[in-house]
């Protein structure tokens, strides 16, 4: 049901792009992308500023390895970082390689009533394939916006097409991202527990990105897009002198509109995890609590029970028990 809601919205977006681009191409080629980019930049900036404004009152790393204590006990630097550099290492592992997801296990209660925890790396693999492919694809697209095309982007595209099976060259990331998206979607649909917790907002970005990937792939392999026209448009957008060239297909407009929708949607959605992962206090703080004091900016006073009050209340009992008191000496 929630998946259907999300699918409906994506189909609606496609219809809007299809119909709209035929009527008012300039709006969909120029105004919408600019607006989306503006919403994205402003939204993400405000969101991150809003996070950054909130203090981190306590140093609460989730420690995943041996602490630094006695010199002869080996500290696990990346699982229990003590210095900022070690934190950077932990964060790099988390952001680039999804370290925590790599730990994933599946708990199974066997018929003999034994709980076993099987390694379950598929989610990690799927997530990694998706995110890395997405990054490479985004970087590949820079060739539309830059003239001349930087060597690094050319090299990246060449590497991506290293398996030259088809003409035009089949790109690895196209295959990977499709496979990964279908796996992530399938998981949400067919794993009963994941389906139970999934909201429309979980299906929507998957379907939206799937739509973007499929239209992109169609433009590359099937209904080939006029690359010169696309580049003309892209370059004109980058220099704020937009011109809408002829020869842009409906497929291209759908692709562009879905991309615009996606980037405008990011600041209002769970896709903010892109920024959140950098700021997560259980990951980006060192486990050196007892060595370096952490300051809480709003550390307000609380009502306490002082020793003097305590001694007064229990005075006679303390005296009878012979426990030393303040007045003794």
């Amino acid at each position, binding site marked *: 049901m929630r998946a259907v809601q999300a699918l409906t919205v994506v189909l609606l977006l496609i219809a809007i792009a299809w119909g709209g681009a035929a009527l008012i191409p300039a709006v969909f080629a120029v105004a919408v992308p600019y607006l989306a980019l503006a919403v994205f930049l402003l939204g993400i900036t405000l969101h991150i500023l809003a996070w950054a404004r*909130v203090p981190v009152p306590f140093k609460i790393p989730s420690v995943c390895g041996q602490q630094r204590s006695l010199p002869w006990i080996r500290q696990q630097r990346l699982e229990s970082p003590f210095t900022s550099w070690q934190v950077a290492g932990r964060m790099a592992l988390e952001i680039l390689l999804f370290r925590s997801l790599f730990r994933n296990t599946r708990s199974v209660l066997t018929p003999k009533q034994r709980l076993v925890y099987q390694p379950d790396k598929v989610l990690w693999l799927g997530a990694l394939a998706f995110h890395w492919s997405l990054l490479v694809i985004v970087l590949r697209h820079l060739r539309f916006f830059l003239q001349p095309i930087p060597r690094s982007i050319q090299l990246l595209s060449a590497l991506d097409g290293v398996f030259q099976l088809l003409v035009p060259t089949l790109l690895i990331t196209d295959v990977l991202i499709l496979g990964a998206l279908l796996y992530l979607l399938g998981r949400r649909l067919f794993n009963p527990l994941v389906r139970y917790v999934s909201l429309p907002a979980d299906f929507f970005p998957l379907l939206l990105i799937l739509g973007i990937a499929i239209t992109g792939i169609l433009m590359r392999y099937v209904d080939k897009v006029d690359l010169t026209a696309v580049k003309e448009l892209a370059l004109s957008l980058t220099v704020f002198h937009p011109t809408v060239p002829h020869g842009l297909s409906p497929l291209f407009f759908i692709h562009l509109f879905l991309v615009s929708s996606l980037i405008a949607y990011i600041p209002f959605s769970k896709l903010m*995890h892109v920024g959140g992962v950098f700021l997560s206090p259980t990951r980006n703080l060192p486990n050196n609590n007892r060595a370096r004091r*952490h300051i809480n900016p709003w550390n307000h006073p609380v009502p306490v029970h*002082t020793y003097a009050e305590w001694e007064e209340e229990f005075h006679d009992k303390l005296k009878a028990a012979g426990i030393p008191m303040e007045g003794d000496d």
Partner: protein
Amino acid sequence: MSKTPEELLQIHYHPPKHDWMDPSIDFEARRGTWSYPGGVKSLEYLGLPNPREWSPTDEDWKLPPNWQEIVHRGFKDLLTKYRSLRIFMDCCVRCGACADKCHFFIGSGDPKNMPVLRAELLRSVYRKDFTTAGKILGRAAGGRALTIDVIKEWFYYFYQCTECRRCSVFCPYGIDTAEITMAARELLNLLGININWIVEPVANCQRTGNHLGIQPHTFKDNVEFLCEELEDITGIHVDPPINKKGAEILFIMPSADYFADPGIYTFMGYMLLFKYLGLDYTLSAYASEGGNFGLFLSRDTAKRLNYKMYAEAKRLGVKWILGGECGHMWRVVNQYMDTMNGPADFLEVPRSPVTGTVFENAASTKMVHICEFTADLIHHGKLKLDPSRNDWARVTYHDACNPARAMGLLEEPRYLLKHAVNHFYEMPENTIREQTFCCGAGAGLGNDENIDMRMRGGLPRANAVKYVHEQHRVNLLTCICAIDRAVLPTLMDFWVPGVRVSGIHELIGNALVIDGENERTTNLRGEPLHGEGEVSDDV
């Protein structure tokens, strides 16, 4: 005990048909899985909101008329104080990696015990009240209005989380359900919704200095009584100083260690060790609690109770503080104390008077864990230990959640065990160290009315113990946590009969060879040294 192990093991991991957003908890039908509400007297003593007589089974929870506004304001306040909460509300993608990492979910199959959904209980209200999409789109954007049924559901499920932080180890963004549970409990507190098993110990601790409400003269009696027992067994006379000014070290332990079996044997272990070393230390009847149930109520109450540690250290003029075996105590001491009640500039960087080791890792907080302290002693060859005195025991080790995931105290206790016992066996790797499973009764849930949920929550831990019990005939589950020592015996009797529970310093005390002692014929529990473990070795 209302259910048998066989009954509890009928666990279904398939979610129900109806939408999770529609809450309804039948408290009457679910007796055994929730705890009684906080008592009026305790709430009044602490000055906490809305003290009244009520029961979760009541239709009317007697909330203030403007309860919605109170929660909304409280939520807003927390969101401006805790970046953790803000980020954890915003960036969960519901990937579900946390789902089967929670002991309560594994033991109950209730989908709302999946950390992701537990957080969604709060997050749905956050979306509705504080996000643009949620305000406009409501339910389609995952938003949910704050109704009285939502409040009841919060009470049910946020008191089915032990703040063990296992899920946060597996979360790709490090979302820590403990932060979310703490926030939810703080919001519930604003309405006077909490549980007595937490509120009463907090009130006791605020007044007398310890959770159990033991007054200073009784504290002294207990200590002396245990020392007499210790002398009967070992022939060693121990007379620990109480509230002694000018001692070098203030020793603070959880109150259960001087009050209840089996913690009292751990206490005897500490006392014997300090006597052996000739340590210049003192106990305190004012700071007579290491643990801090305040943490399970709100961070303010945690700070109130924790205040006594530094205040007493300053008053007594000690150089540094040594802390006993306790789990959540070390969460507070390691991650909160210095920030809340520091800086402890009146203390010195801890230095072992026996080995000269300077504990640089505690340079600011100035408090050392006794496992660090003792490991250093053994490493320097300062202890004469006879591990064969523990041959009655075939031992495994349970990492308490907080020393593991809030400290990384993993090797020190193992190092002690390897020197104090001959038969040590690890539980399976996904159940120990940073992946350790909770006892099922932490964060104030170790009461008897909640027994079914405790046994369910403790299932993953018990199941791992059962494995080493069957494979290696393990008969002793060691731990460095007072809540563990209080609740694991019940858990073992239920799931793995034949396994008992002890602290690590109990075994150190057994193994410690002291000049002038009697020939040891029994362990500190007064049981013959040639017991079951050794006999079964020959079988």
